[in-house]
């Protein structure tokens, strides 16, 4: 690397003042540290001293910026949001010191057209850090001043030659200039005060807006589980193929219950879900001693009520981290208020009798006397003929299980499934049973329960989902349209079992398969959701690491082709020696300062034709000689540099 230091035009003084104000603000509000005043002194020295760093390449600059960002966000963020949400003073000092050091280095570098004075931007950052403290009365005073100088610094930035066409900005002198400055100051003061007041007033709204964006919670879906199931003429469940659950493993029973209802009256099942107790259930309550195969169930969308869906005869439910499971064990529902995707596990047990699962896990609470009474209750509006029908159906059955079997068979053979049912007047179940109407699963479930109660088998009405769709090896998907209703019966000597009286074609099996595009979209959604769930738990360091890696990757990918494209587009300054490029840029700046309009399509020697620019013309001719004749002649370049410095210092004469 060429070790010679050479002069360059002085740094833009508004930018330097901005930087100084920013550092001062930080010093005042941060409580004072030695690093800041030292950095301020260094900055001033770089402004007045002619010595300059050689040009740096892009990579160390970028690395330094990334490290700086890490320090600011990584180290500071943890401590930053303290108990009162404001930045710790030590952290502010640290930020200020690093930023100040960076500013000093930036000022010390040679001017490079490719990187606009980042010192201006960095000083803004420092200022923002300073203003984010409780002592903002200083900042309120110093703010307008900072913004004024920032505006001037940015105007200087605009003046640098971009495409060779330099805008000839007139020099304003005297009263006109002062009035401009005053006007700026007034606008900035007023604007700044208004902005400050606005932020103060709307601080809470802005914060909540930010939080909302971060923890975006989509509207919970209606799961098709109504608060009080009412037998109605239409099967009121959303017919949508929206996914609700993913099941990993072989379920012994495809009925996934949400809650059961025991009280029937006037075509409606109770008690309402909203009136049930929601007590936290600990691990012991949720797991029996028996072992079981772990089957994972993932809730894919947020649903109203945050229900958990499990088969009846499981050996246990295991929460998936975060909040625990709460609810009621006997009739459900089980709830867990976590964001989707939320994964929990059920322990499946293979106990069964003739294929019907019979394991009595934590959800199978044996009914006491009072409960039995509830499960056998029949309202008076049930037609007495229904009792006779029940007895007729279960004639000859010795055991309640046989009774249940016969009821199911009767319903399946004598009634047809239809999504629309005629409710009619009176008790809908009686009408349904006696008039052999076709209806949907709610009716079938209610009828099953009622018939069982008629023959003295305690039973209840259950709502939930039926898992039937497979999405690959050992994975099942449950969609909203798979909502279903069935009954559960308490069989003496066995326990609670599922009794589903809906005919085969009423089960969701017969629905249309899901199209490919929908499957692809669901796959994408899964990925995004799991990423989001992980991302919310990331620490700020991990965030910064991720962002930094992305920025680095983007820059690395874009940098080379961009450089090549710039070359091909015909950059104005393409020279084997960058020193000549530098000289050319300095010369053009000089011409701009002297108010000479220069076109990029004409050579300097043709533009500088009048007498008063004789010196500049000579220099331009010499430059051309070196540039196109002997660009490797170091001695000639040195002489050119010396001559240019002479020219530059002579501008005031």
């Amino acid at each position, binding site marked *: 690397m060429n070790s010679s230091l050479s002069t360059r035009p002085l740094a833009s003084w508004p930018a330097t003042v901005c930087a100084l104000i920013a550092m001062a603000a930080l010093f005042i509000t941060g409580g004072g540290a030695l690093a800041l005043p030292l950095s301020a002194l260094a900055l001033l020295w770089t402004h007045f001293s002619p010595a300059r760093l050689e040009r740096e390449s892009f990579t160390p600059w970028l690395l330094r910026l990334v490290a700086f960002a890490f320090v600011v966000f990584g180290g500071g963020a943890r401590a930053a949001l303290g108990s009162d949400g404001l930045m710790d003073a030590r952290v502010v000092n640290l930020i200020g010191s690093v930023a100040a050091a960076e500013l000093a280095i930036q000022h010390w570098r040679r001017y490079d057209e490719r990187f606009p004075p980042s010192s201006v931007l960095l000083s803004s950052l420092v200022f923002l850090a300073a203003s984010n403290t409780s002592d903002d009365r200083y900042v309120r005073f110093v703010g307008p001043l900072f913004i004024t100088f920032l505006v001037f610094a940015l105007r200087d930035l605009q003046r640098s030659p971009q*495409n*060779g066409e330099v805008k000839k900005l007139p020099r304003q002198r005297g009263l006109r200039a002062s009035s401009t400055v005053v006007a700026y100051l007034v606008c900035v003061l007023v604007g700044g005060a208004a902005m400050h007041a606005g932020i103060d007033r709307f601080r809470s709204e802005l914060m909540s807006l930010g939080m909302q964006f971060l923890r975006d919670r989509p509207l919970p879906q209606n799961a098709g589980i109504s608060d009080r199931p009412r037998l109605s003429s239409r099967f009121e469940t959303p017919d949508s193929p929206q996914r609700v659950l993913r099941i990993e493993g072989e379920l012994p029973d495809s009925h996934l219950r949400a809650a059961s209802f025991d009280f029937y009256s006037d075509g409606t099942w109770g008690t309402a879900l909203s009136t049930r107790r929601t007590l936290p259930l600990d691990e012991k309550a949720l797991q029996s001693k028996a072992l079981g195969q772990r089957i994972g169930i993932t809730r894919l969308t947020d649903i109203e009520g945050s229900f958990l869906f499990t088969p009846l005869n499981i050996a246990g439910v295991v929460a998936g981290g975060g909040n625990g499971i709460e609810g009621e064990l006997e009739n459900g529902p089980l709830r867990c208020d976590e964001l989707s995707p939320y994964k929990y596990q059920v322990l499946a047990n293979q106990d069964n009798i003739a294929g019907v699962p019979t394991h009595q896990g934590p959800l199978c609470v044996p009914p006491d006397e009072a409960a039995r009474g509830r499960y056998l209750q029949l309202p008076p509006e049930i037609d007495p003929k229904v009792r006779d029908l029940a007895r007729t159906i279960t004639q000859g059955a010795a055991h309640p299980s046989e009774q249940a079997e016969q009821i199911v068979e009767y319903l399946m053979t004598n009634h047809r499934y239809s999504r629309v049912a005629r409710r009619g007047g009176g008790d809908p179940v009686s009408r349904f049973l006696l008039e052999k109407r076709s209806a949907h699963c709610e009716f079938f479930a209610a009828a099953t329960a009622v018939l069982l109660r008629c023959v003295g088998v305690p039973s209840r009405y259950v709502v939930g989902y039926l898992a039937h769709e497979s999405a690959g090896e050992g994975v099942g998907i449950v969609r909203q349209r798979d909502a279903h209703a069935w009954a559960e019966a308490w069989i003496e000597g066995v326990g609670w079992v599922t009794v589903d009286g809906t005919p085969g074609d009423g089960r969701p099996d017969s629905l249309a398969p899901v199209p490919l595009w929908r499957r692809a979209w669901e796959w994408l959604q899964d990925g995004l959701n799991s990423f989001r769930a992980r991302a919310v738990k990331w620490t700020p360091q991990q965030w910064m690491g991720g962002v930094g890696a992305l920025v680095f990757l983007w820059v690395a990918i874009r940098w080379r082709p961009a450089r090549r494209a710039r070359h091909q587009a*015909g950059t*104005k*300054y*393409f*020279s084997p020696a960058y020193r000549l490029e530098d000289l*050319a840029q300095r010369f053009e700046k000089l011409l701009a300062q002297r108010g000479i309009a220069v*076109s*990029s*399509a*004409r*050579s*300097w*020697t*043709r533009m500088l034709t009048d007498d*008063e620019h*004789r*010196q500049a013309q*000579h*220099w331009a*001719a*010499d430059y*051309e*000689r*070196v*540039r*196109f*004749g*002997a*660009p490797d002649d170091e001695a*000639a370049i040195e*002489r*050119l540099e010396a*001559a240019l410095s*002479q*020219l530059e210092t002579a501008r005031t004469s």
Partner: protein
Amino acid sequence: MKSEPLISSLAAPIASQNGSQSSLARLEANLSGVIRGKREGVRLLLVALLSGGHALLEDVPGTGKTTLAKSLAASIEGNFRRIQFTPDLLPADITGSSFYNPAQGEWEFRAGPVFCNILLADEINRTSPRTQSALLEVMGESSVTIEGRRCPLPQPFFVIATQNPSDFHGTYPLPEAQMDRFALTLSLGYPDADSELEVLLERHTRDPFESLQPMIGCDEVLRLQERVRGVRVDRAIAEYIVRLCEATRRDTRLRLAISTRGALSLYRAAQARALLENRDFTLPDDVRELAVATLAHRLALDAKAKYAGAQPSTLIEEILDATPMPR
């Protein structure tokens, strides 16, 4: 404010061979003595000569085309021939032909007027395309092939072709594709009043052409052509030339854009001009100032632009103004 150069050590040219400097200067002075007030035209002609190309003069009669060509030939101690093209001229009248000499009993080759150093092809647009292409071929090949026998032309071989720009009756104007073979076009035009007065006064007693002394020899011209090829061209300048050509190819008003041959001509012409100004490196200004002369005749405007009154030279000026020059 000082009026002398800042860096006196850089005031002198970096490289110069005093020999060639003076010979070119003398040549120029010689020609300027005969053709008054047309310094730029003379320089362009010398650029064409040194770059190894040929020149096309588009001029009204009586402006000194023949005089210029004869003076040039005299100055370089070369042979001068003139062909006046007429509609009934045959290719053999240019290249020469074989004829049977009964006295010696065999075929003899009689060289045509093209075997010379400086050829003035007058009114090239008055002859049939067959004859035109014969000449152009000769210009391209620098040799003549008669019945399988290849006869090289003397070196240096320089053609100055002329066209009368306002005479369209009974002419076969050269199509643009063949104009491409000329390195540059120039137009002398009428001299200004002072120069014309000088001419009249000078010719009152003597003919300046008679007192013309040869300045350099033909081999010196060949050496100069060699030196031209060695003039340094910075890569940025080559890219500038390419950008100009690309700009013409992108321009929608042009039916025919600059070919690689055109780019090469401009390249050589820039080198030649640099040598003429006693430099051994080209400057972007060389390219810029030769662009119109070298490129304008190679372009063809499309119908819409032509009827709108656009000229190739203005188009080139526009492109020059829009392309940034290397610094």
